[in-house]
């Protein structure tokens, strides 16, 4: 019996076709993987099923019955629940309150409610304390609360959107057991992922999306292997990123040297824990790791945006520790942050105003910004990096992701840096955008710029980097020369040594 049947789903957004006739068929009581690269349309398709988006065309059938959802509440009513990557929990509410929100009896009896939540959790082996407030919980525990929310509403179909991205390996294993328990209870689980290892371990069947369409449906996971999956996900095998060939071998003069760097978050947890690294002239050092293992605070700390607890940072022999972002920019550091529109750019300001974020201090000699110079700088960035804009005096918020990133990268490189930190530089970009940015990074490295490349896209790292380091729980746990780095080895290190044999 098919629990879910999606057919010919089309969904268009301004300028983007996210789903182009995608389909999906999920057996009741099974765990079904939906695989695909970033931007393949997995999340959009799932949002259609969960009632967040309405499909432009296509049909949604649950247990053989045609359905039309106009809101998430509709979908929940029909037994479909989605656990998004960003958890939708209220930190000051207890676990039980979060679970019962919107689906409780009129009168809340605290004890009773907590007992019911505890009973439900026990049924599926979800360890949780219903009376605790959510802000105390780890990411794994929060995810269990999200799953409990779905079970509380008696969801028969659960969509988990890249559920392991925020989990430790142990937590991921536990999730696997929970998913199995739910399937045994005749529920159907859709498991979005791009990691082969966990798909083969946790799932029964897999559907692969590419470019918004389904390229393989309901393959038994036993038949999957890495090469085949890569081919399905990326298209022709030549499209798998080729390792770049250096024309100008890196020297071994360290330009960026980080010694024993430790950063603590607001709660006193060491997000970066004694990291040492060095990037040589003209070298690309790749940092691999599952999201949330300290990559972002590392980048922010090197750029001077967060305080460090201990350790030193040197750029071309000059000590940067304790200096602010401006001094580091002056010393030759440029930073393309992960959160482009929230950190790297100011969405309400115009294209010109965004183009001069690094240079406004020198546009004009006095206290005033020379608008002619600012405009020239902006226009030359726009021309050089082929940024498509509505006008230099229009707010930047209207630009597409690829154009935002071209402008941002161009602006950073216009400072003629010695070191460039690029965090997730191609995430969410279309194929052209990815290529444009990757080409720029390689060209810069060839020209002698040292690049610290942080990416969750393993293929990108392997294709571009001279060396790859792996971060896990704030520490550097492995390092590979480009020639020795393989997907399997790096992937195993990302997952932690205990899981090496599983990958």
């Amino acid at each position: 019996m098919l629990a879910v049947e999606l057919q010919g789903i089309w969904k268009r957004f301004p300028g983007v076709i996210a789903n182009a006739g995608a389909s999906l068929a999920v057996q009741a009581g099974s765990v079904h993987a939906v695989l695909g690269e970033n931007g393949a349309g997995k999340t959009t398709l799932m949002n259609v099923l969960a009632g967040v988006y309405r499909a432009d065309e296509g049909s949604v059938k649950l247990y053989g019955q045609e359905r039309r959802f106009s809101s998430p509440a509709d979908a929940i009513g029909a037994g479909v629940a989605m656990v998004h990557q960003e958890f939708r929990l209220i930190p000051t509410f207890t676990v039980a309150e979060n679970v019962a929100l919107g689906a409780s009896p009129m009168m809340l009896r605290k004890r009773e409610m907590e007992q019911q939540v505890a009973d439900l959790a026990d049924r599926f082996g979800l360890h949780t304390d219903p009376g605790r407030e959510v802000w105390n919980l780890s990411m794994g525990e929060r995810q269990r609360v999200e799953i409990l929310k779905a079970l509380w509403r008696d969801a028969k179909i659960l969509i988990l959107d890249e559920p392991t991205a925020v989990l430790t390996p142990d937590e991921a294993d536990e999730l696997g057991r929970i998913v199995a328990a739910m399937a045994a209870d005749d529920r159907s689980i859709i498991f979005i992922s791009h990691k082969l290892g966990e798909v083969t371990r946790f799932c029964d069947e897999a559907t692969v999306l590419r470019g918004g369409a389904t390229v393989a449906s309901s393959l038994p996971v036993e038949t999957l292997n890495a090469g085949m999956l890569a081919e399905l996900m990326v298209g022709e095998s030549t499209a798998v990123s080729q390792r770049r060939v250096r024309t100008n071998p890196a020297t071994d003069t360290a330009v960026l040297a980080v010694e024993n760097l430790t950063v603590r978050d607001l709660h006193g947890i060491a997000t970066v824990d004694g990291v040492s690294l060095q990037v040589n002239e003209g070298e690309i050092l790749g940092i691999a790791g599952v999201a949330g293992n300290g990559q972002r605070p590392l980048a922010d700390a090197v750029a001077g945006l967060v305080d460090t607890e201990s350790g030193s940072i040197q750029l071309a022999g000059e000590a940067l520790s304790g200096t602010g972002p401006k001094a580091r920019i002056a010393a030759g550091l440029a930073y393309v942050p992960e959160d482009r529109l929230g950190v790297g750019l100011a969405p309400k300001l115009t294209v010109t105003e965004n183009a001069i974020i690094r240079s406004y201090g020198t546009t004009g000699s006095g206290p005033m910004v020379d608008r002619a110079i600012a405009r020239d700088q902006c226009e030359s960035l726009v021309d050089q990096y082929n940024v498509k804009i509505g006008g230099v005096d229009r707010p930047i918020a209207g630009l597409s992701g690829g154009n935002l990133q071209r402008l941002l990268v161009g602006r950073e490189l216009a400072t003629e840096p010695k070191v460039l930190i690029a965090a997730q530089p191609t995430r969410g970009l279309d194929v052209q955008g990815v290529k444009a940015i990757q080409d720029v990074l390689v060209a810069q490295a060839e020209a002698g710029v040292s690049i610290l490349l942080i990416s969750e896209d393993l293929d990108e790292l392997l294709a571009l980097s001279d060396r790859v380091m792996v971060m896990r729980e704030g520490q550097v746990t492995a390092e590979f020369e480009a020639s020795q780095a393989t997907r399997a080895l790096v992937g195993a290190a990302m997952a932690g040594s205990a899981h090496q044999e599983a990958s």
Partner: protein
Amino acid sequence: MNEVTIVGLLVDVIAFGVLLYLAALGELVAEKAGVLNLGVEGMMAIGGVAAFWSGVQFGSPLVGLIVAGIAAGLLALVHALVAVVLGADQVVSGLALTIFGLGLSAFLGKEYVSLPPVEQFGTLPLGSLRELRIIGPILFDQPWVAWLAAALGFLTWFVLERTRVGLGLRAVGENAATADAAGQSVTVTRVAAVVVGGVLAGFSGAFLVLNLAKGWTEGVTAGRGWIAVALVIFGAWRPGRTAIGALLFGGLLALEPRLQTFGVEVSPILVSMLPYAITIGVLVVFSIQSRHRPSAAPAAIGRAYRREER
């Protein structure tokens, strides 16, 4: 100091406490749903003039209370439409509501200035309880609005903490998108909370004009609305703590005119600053604490919500 003066003081402490508590409770409900309403002063004034008008027309304080609630609720609806439905800035809209409410109440009330008092809220028929020494006059000889305020305080706590409606309302005030995804209509919840807040501010204005000021004058609210805003913070957005704060701040209001008779050589004007100064202090303490745990303030306060597709 003899028993009479002390009892007289405590009677006033409760009376001023009730005045502040009603308005603060209304603001608490709105803020719990994520809407800051700086129009309390204006809503109280409209409630006051409406109650006085009603007193002149009908003579019944109960009718006055209802009319005041409706008038102030309608005024609050303006804030709800502008700041919630249309999503304009809550701070600006709320302040404009104060200016509007003060102006409109002065406009409508110009013929009532310095008219003799109308009928007050009376006491409950509690018989011999009222005759009890000390606690009789302090507790049982109070106007029934005092009991209403206590009941509304309990009701607010109960609804917020023990019902589905309250859970949804608090969720809307903490994270509107999450509440929306859970099927709670953000707009309906917030509009309702703002209007309820207005009704309670109107009750407070009615009590002020009928029982405390005993008449209508322009500017009768005299900054009490701002104390109500401060009280919500002092009470950490909890009805119970807010009640304690109302008695404390009400106590300061009651103490002001008596300081000299008590032989205290401090200007009553300086004492009248205390509620605001205390609130600043409390706010600073909260901010320091919130480094280690989430703030007591509803997280979504001040933020408009619009559901949008990507």
